[in-house]
């Protein structure tokens, strides 16, 4: 069996990739995808702990995270489209009507 630490390192790496992506990339859709990577990294953590502790709470938690991530996608993409109709860009640097 793969030890817990390996899973934790994997999820921490994925989480950091997500965080870096959010901070570095300027395309709203890509930033959004990086946030999804972060959420899925958390899912890996939850499931790994769950298996290690031999419990169920973490699985339920990760289902909730998946549900919420789905709801977030629908709201987020709708907002991106609403913005795109007013101003045809997805570049975050061009969203400067108000001081960032």
């Amino acid at each position: 069996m793969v030890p817990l630490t390996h899973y934790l390192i994997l999820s921490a790496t994925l989480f950091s990739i997500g965080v870096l992506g959010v901070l570095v990339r300027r395309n709203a859709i890509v930033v959004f995808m990086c946030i999804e990577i972060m959420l899925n990294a958390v899912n890996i953590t939850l499931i790994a702990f769950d298996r290690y502790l031999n419990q169920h709470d973490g699985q339920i938690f990760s289902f909730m995270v998946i549900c919420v991530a789905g709801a977030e996608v629908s709201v987020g993409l709708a907002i991106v489209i609403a913005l795109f109709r007013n101003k045809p860009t997805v570049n975050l640097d061009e969203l400067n009507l108000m001081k960032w």
Partner: protein
Amino acid sequence: MIPAPEIDLVSLAPVLVLSVFTMLVLLMDLFIGKNKSGLVFISLTGLLLTAVSSFAKTDWPVRSFGGSYVVDHLSVFFTMVFCISSALAILISIEYNRREKIRVGEYYSLILFCTVGMIILASSTDLIMIFLGIEIVSLCLYVLAGIRRGDVRSSEAALKYFLLGAFATGFLLYGMALLYGTTGTTKLAGIAEAISSGQMSSQPLVLMGMVLLVLGFGFKVAAVPFHMWTPDVYQGAPTPVTAFMAVGPKAAAFAAFFRVFTEAMPELASSWDMILSIIAVITMFVGNLGAIVQTNIKRLLAYSSISHAGYLLIAIIARNSLGGSALVFYMLVYTFMIFGAFGIVILIGREGKENLELEDYSGLGFQSPLLALSMSIFLLSLGGLPPLAGFIAKFYIFQAALNEGYVILVVLAVLNSAISFYYYLRVIVYMYMKEPQGEFQITLTPITLLVIVISVLVTVELGLFPGPVLSLAQP
């Protein structure tokens, strides 16, 4: 096989009642045609019944769903604050929406759904439930911030809020996952037990989880350095939504913040009270100093709300029962001050021109003295001038912190209160000591005016006679 949890629907009464009414609003929207004012009555009835049904259980604290939901002093009082703030938000929206041509029925149901999330957030004692509550609240707010679909600013605010909000959710979740992994439970009481008996598998991971939780909650309550979204979102969102965001969801996030840190991690207080103290101090300074240079009234109030988050953090740092009741009392008072102030901001604007610059307030004192007087009362109360309610609220928070010996923190907070008068008085100077820039065309719309009158009365009343309400807030 997982045993089925004990289901206690009576303690969930407020959530259920409000959910039913929210769906009713959503359904009725399809049938009532273009004029959406009928929805207002359903929404307000729903909020009233929610407030009543929160007393369905009276032998507090009642724990249900295997200890993941609790009805106690804090949650019931917070439910009251949420009902009041949502009702006021709906009331000041009616005429604003008519003027700005926001003709969507979902507006009201979103506010109500958000309220459901806030009640869940204030009453849950389980990390999963807290996460769900935060997400219900946030998702509704993302949509509400961008509800003016034709307006670039509104959409821009929604996108910024959404991206940063989801980013912070990631951190919050990671913190929760680490806490769960190290203590083996998602219940706040269980986590506290595991930490105090030393059964956690790894101390560093618990501390990391705690720091990530501070980050996630810090974003939701707009504490520095996670406050960057606040001014932009407050400026871009429709004014009633801004007022709502500054009060209800913030109160809910503080309730959960308070619960998680005082109920799950009291043993780690020595590590988190230092972090929170530093955050509280820089939040107050950045909020107050940032507000001084603002020329837009909504941005000014946004920075002022950042600084108020700093004062409220002190109530969490104090972590005693006085801190809890000071927190709810502050939020109650804050609700009225903010809705009053934003009500006036709405009245000053007119169709096609929102008049949000401070210049637009020049000479208001001569043109409509009563409106200017009310605005002065709200601003001075926000600053904490005795005998207004804002002073009493601040006083109790500082008292709670002094009882625990945080003298330096309180001194810095009082200093900040003094700084804050500078920019509140600046608005008052504009109103009373500058010549009017142009003709005011203020239409005194009755319902918005009603909100302002209620807010003035409560702000003065709670300042002069805080006793009865305070005794309700105390466990």
